[in-house]
């Protein structure tokens, strides 16, 4: 069927900010959808609140709206644009929910908008638990037996019928509080009793536990003509019980026989037919490892994280095809874009093994609960491709950038046997490495299987790695490490460094011996069809085999290094810049080659670059590609710290780094060199010292004066950074948070209180282009990534701005920057101090590019390759500011991460960002806060607990809320203070006092906002912590920075009409008035 001809204009909804569970995969899906629709000649209107995405680039759609993803704003856009169709199945759960809301509010009907793709009824059937179960029963597909119970007796009766183990899920509790798995009557009684207590409606769902079953996923597609295919099936290494987003996943399945594979395939297709899916869909199934019994776990009636993974794993672009199906095409009339000669209606077949490993944020959130379960906690993931399982796994591990290049986690060796057993049974993020440690210690695969339920196929493969390491070590001991053995090692994915480690032979010797024997990688193509048809995709992976398939065009080429997995501190913004760099290179006639390993992103879409290498961003792997490609050079400044960190190794190997060179990168990152440079440029920076002992730290702090900012010198990005206010806190920090010694110095800097300002600039070595200066709402001390950034600045004087421009220009020249740089300043007592210089693309590049309409990454790429700024048509210096005010608001995923403190500080905690743009700051802030997920009621109660040090400052702020009609709730101390200031306050009980106390108030939703500031420094302050967590878990806005609170007040003042009585008559004060009146 050809495309729908009654549709001309289509509205596409994006997924909004990056949060845990909804990440860059929707930028990839949305970008593909927009491209696919434009390709078909539709007019595309896009709305998404996330400025860091490629999909919100103005060339991706005919019109782009970066506005809050709320029913209200969507309705406004719909009324304004009058689209014929709405495509919502590519914007994650956010997109689906919005479509549902718009439908329920009657807006779609009223404006005559057709929902494209899978219809709402199908979405409802898939998403509503009861409807879904009913449908499954109707079509005879098994779901785990379950029941809703209100008493312990009912639960026991259910158990009688079904048998143990049983999962208990209390209704309406967040994060499954009070639930658990019961394996006998006693446990069931206990868990149900507590579950009923926690559930506000005294209700629990009891379900047969299928933990330990194999977890298998099918990515399926279906069109309106009922053609249905499976794009990819995947097997979770971690069995049912751990969220698939937190599981190690392989594609294709490894332990299913053909009968099992097709039994589950048939079930998946039957389900999507019954649901009448039109587009992509994900079906999750659980298979008993000891029989043909299976259960349907869940269906996602839309593209998802798994479909992005499946697309990259197979080469089959699911989102693109889903978009085309949504506008009426059928699979059999669409060409497979990979082969360009066969059709999209087929099932890709793999001739390699794909491994996905999640990337968790626990390096940032050391206090978080690291246990893995049904709530996803990973922020991102890596994927690797190999011809052996071992190769694929090894490559995935070194793609993670967790400081490992093998499956050997040194810390695991320290664990006691009991601790190891305990952590294997209760999985956490390090389980893979603990399994390896167990195997190294000689624990049997049988035992580990009992503890972990990981299939013995995978355990045998893990064991194979351990066994081979031992064999290599033994061979080396006898001086008999043969080239055959080396080849075998490389086929299993060992790095030269790992071989060196286990054999004790220097890595250079290993490399030399390997090369002498001709053991070098070849590059094979991902082609959807296992080489059955000729493919046109430039999508490669390395492996150790005979034939290399890379086609050399002979054109000059440049390699761009990507930024790896999404993690806190290095998000989608870097993928945005990477993609723009690739596009700029193509514009200039270069062949753009990209290396990256993140399956969620646009940069790893094979249609983005001229050649994509899906490889670890690990020095050995990168150098191998460079050897093959022989590029003009490598660009490292777009891939975040990942790429920057590779620069030294590349230069050492004689690779040309294009743009800012290694010496300059080093000068910006090495504290001593940097200080020297700033001194020579006569630019101020907060006074500080580098110390190598606790005593020296105390001395330094005393001479600098408290508060001081302390951080270890060997980690970047604000990790383990703290502001300490007195010696006691300093000592606690030095003893507990860092290890200090001559190899690991600690930096002690004066903490300058003041506004933080951020500048992004492009330099060609001489001319410096400054697209914009941003001011942060939160003062210095809150990580720039967690602050609300405002453009243009609101409180910076023209003369100070001139000075910032001048400083930026001098620093850029002084550092010989060629390309992008980012500088953070603090304005203390009307003087600018440099906090940090990043000689690379920053988090704010996409935001600034979009609001200033200056394509920064594009210009930077051209500059890197030799163009000058004037040549590119830009006047150096500060660019004219726009009339609109734009704000970038951080978004956090605290609800997903239990036990993480939400208070803002020098360590970054946000996972994503949104943008608000309007004519005034207040309006922009309103949009930004709303888009970030904040609910902004204009009346209600404000619960305040303010630290003594902040009380004076908070006074007017709280008064402001009060003036708007907000009722004030406070504990004794704060209440007294506020009353002394003339405010009426309702007293509430403290956390540790009898119920109802503050926590109950938060729980019951009786506070609209909570303002809570830290008592002092970072001393564990349990009450504050509990208040903050309780707020997060109950969806109450909790502000920990007075600056943010002030911004919120500004918004409230702007959107609230005050009710004021008329002023009384007063005697005229001037003669004129009298005459006039």
């Amino acid at each position, binding site marked *: 069927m050809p495309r729908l001809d009654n549709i001309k204009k289509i509205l596409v909804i994006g997924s909004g900010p990056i949060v845990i569970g909804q990440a860059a995969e929707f930028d990839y899906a949305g970008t593909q959808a927009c491209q696919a629709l434009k390709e078909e000649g539709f007019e595309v209107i896009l709305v998404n609140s996330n400025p860091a995405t490629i999909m919100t680039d103005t060339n991706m759609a005919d019109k782009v709206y970066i506005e809050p993803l709320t029913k209200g704003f969507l309705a406004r856009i719909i009324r304004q644009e009058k689209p014929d169709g709405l495509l919502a199945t590519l914007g994650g759960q956010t997109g689906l929910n919005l479509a549902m809301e718009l439908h329920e509010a009657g807006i779609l009907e009223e404006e005559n908008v057709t929902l494209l793709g899978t219809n709402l009824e199908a979405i409802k059937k898939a998403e509503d638990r009861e409807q879904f179960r009913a449908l499954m029963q109707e079509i005879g597909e098994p779901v785990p037996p379950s029941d809703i119970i209100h008493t312990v007796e009912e639960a026991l009766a259910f158990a009688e019928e079904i048998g143990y183990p049983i999962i208990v899920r209390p209704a309406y509790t967040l994060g499954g509080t009070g639930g658990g798995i019961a394996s006998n009557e006693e446990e069931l009684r206990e868990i149900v009793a507590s579950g009923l207590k926690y559930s506000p409606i005294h209700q629990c769902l009891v379900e047969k536990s299928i933990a330990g079953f194999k977890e298998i996923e099918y990515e399926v597609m279906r069109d309106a*003509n*009922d*053609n249905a*295919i*499976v794009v990819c099936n995947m097997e979770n290494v971690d069995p049912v019980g751990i969220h698939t987003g937190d599981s190690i996943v392989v594609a*294709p*399945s*490894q*332990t*299913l*026989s*053909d*009968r*099992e*594979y*097709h039994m589950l*395939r*048939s079930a998946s*297709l039957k389900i999507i037919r019954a649901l009448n899916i039109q587009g992509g869909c994900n079906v999750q199934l659980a298979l008993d*490892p*000891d*029989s043909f019994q299976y259960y349907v776990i869940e269906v996602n009636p839309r593209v998802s994280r798994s479909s992005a993974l499946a697309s990259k794993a197979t080469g089959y672009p699911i989102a693109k095809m889903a978009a085309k199906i949504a506008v009426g095409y059928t*699979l*059999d009339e669409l060409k497979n874009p990979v082969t360009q*000669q*066969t*059709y999209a*209606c*087929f*099932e*890709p*077949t*793999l*001739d*390699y*093994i794909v491994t996905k490993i999640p990337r968790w944020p626990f390096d940032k959130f050391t206090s978080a609960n690291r246990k893995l379960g049904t709530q996803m906690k990973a922020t991102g993931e890596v994927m690797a491709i190999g*011809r*052996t*399982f071992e190769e694929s796994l090894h490559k995935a591990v070194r793609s993670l950038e967790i400081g490992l290049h093998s499956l050997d986690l040194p810390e695991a060796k320290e664990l006691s046997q009991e601790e190891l057993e305990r952590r294997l049974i209760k999985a956490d993020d390090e389980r893979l490495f603990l399994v390896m440690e167990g195997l190294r210690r000689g624990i049997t695969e049988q035992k580990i299987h009992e503890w972990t339920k990981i*299939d*013995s*196929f995978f355990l*045998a*493969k893990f064991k*194979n790695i351990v066994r081979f390491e031992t064999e290599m070590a033994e061979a080396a001991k006898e001086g008999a490490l043969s080239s055959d053995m080396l080849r075998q090692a490389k086929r299993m994915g060992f790095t030269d460094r790992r071989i060196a480690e286990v054999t004790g032979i220097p890595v250079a010797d290993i490399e030399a011996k390997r090369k002498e024997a001709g053991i070098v990688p070849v590059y*094979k193509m991902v082609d959807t*069809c*296992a*080489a*059955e*048809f*000729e493919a046109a995709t430039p999508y490669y992976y390395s492996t150790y*085999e*005979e*034939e290399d*398939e890379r086609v050399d065009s002979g054109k000059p080429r440049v390699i761009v290094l990507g930024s790896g997995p999404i993690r806190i501190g290095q998000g989608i913004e870097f993928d945005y810049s990477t993609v723009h760099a690739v596009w700029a290179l193509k514009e200039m006639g270069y062949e753009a080659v990209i290396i990256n390993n993140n399956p969620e992103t646009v940069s790893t879409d094979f249609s983005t670059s001229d050649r994509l290498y899906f490889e670890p961003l690990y020095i050995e792997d990168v150098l191998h590609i460079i050897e093959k490609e022989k590029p003009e050079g490598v660009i490292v400044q777009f891939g975040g710290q990942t790429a920057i960190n590779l620069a030294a190794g590349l230069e050492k190997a004689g690779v040309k780094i294009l743009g800012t060179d290694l010496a300059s990168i080093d000068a910006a990152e090495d504290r001593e060199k940097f200080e020297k440079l700033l001194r020579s440029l006569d630019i101020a920076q907060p006074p500080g010292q580098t110390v190598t002992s606790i005593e020296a730290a105390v001395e330094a702090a005393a001479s600098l004066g408290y508060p001081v900012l302390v951080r270890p010198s060997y980690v970047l990005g604000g990790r383990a950074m703290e502001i300490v206010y007195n010696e006691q806190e300093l000592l606690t920090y030095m003893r507990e948070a860092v290890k200090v010694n001559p190899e690991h110095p600690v930096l002690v800097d004066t903490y300058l209180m003041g506004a933080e300002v951020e500048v992004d600039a492009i330099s060609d070595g001489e001319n410096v282009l400054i697209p914009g200066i941003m001011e942060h709402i939160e003062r210095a001390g809150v990580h720039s990534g967690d602050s609300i950034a405002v453009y243009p600045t609101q409180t910076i004087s023209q003369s100070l701005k001139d000075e910032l421009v001048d400083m930026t220009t001098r620093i850029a020249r002084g550092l010989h920057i060629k390309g992008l740089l980012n500088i953070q300043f603090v304005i203390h007592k009307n003087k600018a101090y440099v906090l940090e210089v990043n000689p690379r693309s920053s988090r704010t590049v996409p935001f600034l590019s979009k609001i200033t309409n200056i394509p920064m990454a594009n210009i930077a790429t051209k500059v890197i390759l030799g163009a000058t700024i004037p040549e590119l048509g830009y006047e150096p210096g500060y660019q004219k500011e726009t009339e609109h005010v734009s704000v970038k608001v951080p978004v956090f995923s605290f609800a997903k991460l239990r036990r993480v403190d939400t208070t803002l500080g020098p360590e970054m905690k946000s996972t994503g960002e949104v943008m608000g743009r309007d004519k005034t700051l207040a309006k922009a802030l309103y949009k930004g806060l709303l888009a970030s997920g904040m609910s902004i009621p204009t009346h209600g109660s404000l619960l305040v607990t303010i630290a003594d040090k902040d009380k004076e400052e908070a006074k007017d702020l709280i008064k402001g809320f009060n003036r708007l009609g907000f009722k004030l709730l406070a504990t004794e101390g704060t209440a007294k203070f506020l009353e002394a200031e003339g405010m009426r306050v309702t007293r509430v009980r403290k956390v540790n006092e009898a119920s109802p106390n503050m926590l109950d108030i938060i729980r019951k939703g009786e506070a609209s906002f909570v303002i809570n500031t830290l008592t002092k420094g970072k001393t564990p302050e349990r009450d504050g912590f509990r208040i903050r967590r309780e707020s997060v878990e109950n969806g109450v806005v909790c502000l920990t920075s007075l600056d943010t609170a002030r911004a919120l007040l500004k918004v409230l003042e702007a959107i609230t009409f005050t009710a004021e009585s008329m002023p009384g008559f007063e005697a005229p004060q001037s003669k004129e008035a009298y005459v006039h009146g």
Partner: protein
Amino acid sequence: MKKQARLVLEDGTVFTGKSFGAQGESLGEVVFNTGITGYQEVLSDPSYCGQIVTMTYPLIGNYGINRDDFETMRPFVHGFVVREHCEVHSNWRSEQTVDSLLKEYNIPGIEEVDTRKLTRIIRQHGTLKGLITTSDEPVESLLEKLKAPLMEDQVARVSTKNMFAAPGRGSKIVLVDFGAKYGILRELIKRGCDVIVVPYNVTADEIRRIRPDGIMLSNGPGDPKNVPKAIRMIQEILGEYPLFGICLGHQLLALACGADTHKMKFGHRGGNHPVKELATGRTYITSQNHGYAVSKESLTDTDLEISHIALNDGTVEGLTHKKYPAFSVQYHPEAAPGPYDSDYLFDRFLEQVAKFTKEEKNYAATR
């Protein structure tokens, strides 16, 4: 230490790998199969008789070999080429490894081969003759051996020697065994059929004596033109009984109706082949294993019309007889290995059988 093995192709390409399965030497036509799962079914599919099969998926043997999933009594491949043979097999039904199975039936295998390279060679040059050996014989003399013609009597080798029954209470179906997969039998038995399996060289009279309700022509190995007797048999009984042909059976029906077949460059082997049913416009993902195809042009003056085509290369995948209740498909509706999407064809056949039987009875009643 595993013994070294070599795979030598007639174009002179030599792959050196490790031996698994039996040692020794074996010659055959080298073909590739793109299925990710289903190696047990592939090994035991008689249609591969005379062929050395390489699997494009690099890990083979992961879920072992079980006693249930054989498509015939024994494996018929002449050799097996894989990237990695998994010694550790994991599945609740698994009983042995691929290695031990091949040893039991004296079939050589070779692993650690760049199977993707091999596949690309076959794709570019078409199917080649090849030989697996664990000997140290020089390549030249091995290439000499490769000049020998390929076998032509595969059907006789794999077909049952005697008739046998798989009794049921439903329609009586004669299954002509040219190398039938159990899958076909399974589908018929599942539908309650009373199945009589007969050898490939059965005569029309022998079939008539059974008084069947319908005839099923099975899959089988090699060139359909190598079984001329079967073509004549089909010509004789066409129209007397409803008839359903699969794979080789499909090609034989075409030949019997005056159409022609040809050898394909490298054939279709795998479980992901899209086939379009022309009557409905629906596309089905099918399991395929064929190196020959019915020539499209040759159908012009016959009583056959094309019912299905391969979506990708447009080759004939299904035929319907214009006058008689007879149809056939080139692919495998019985799956095993592969998708079950087309098992409705067995229902369609049995509907035809029922209708035909009823009509015949009505006709008899009016007489």
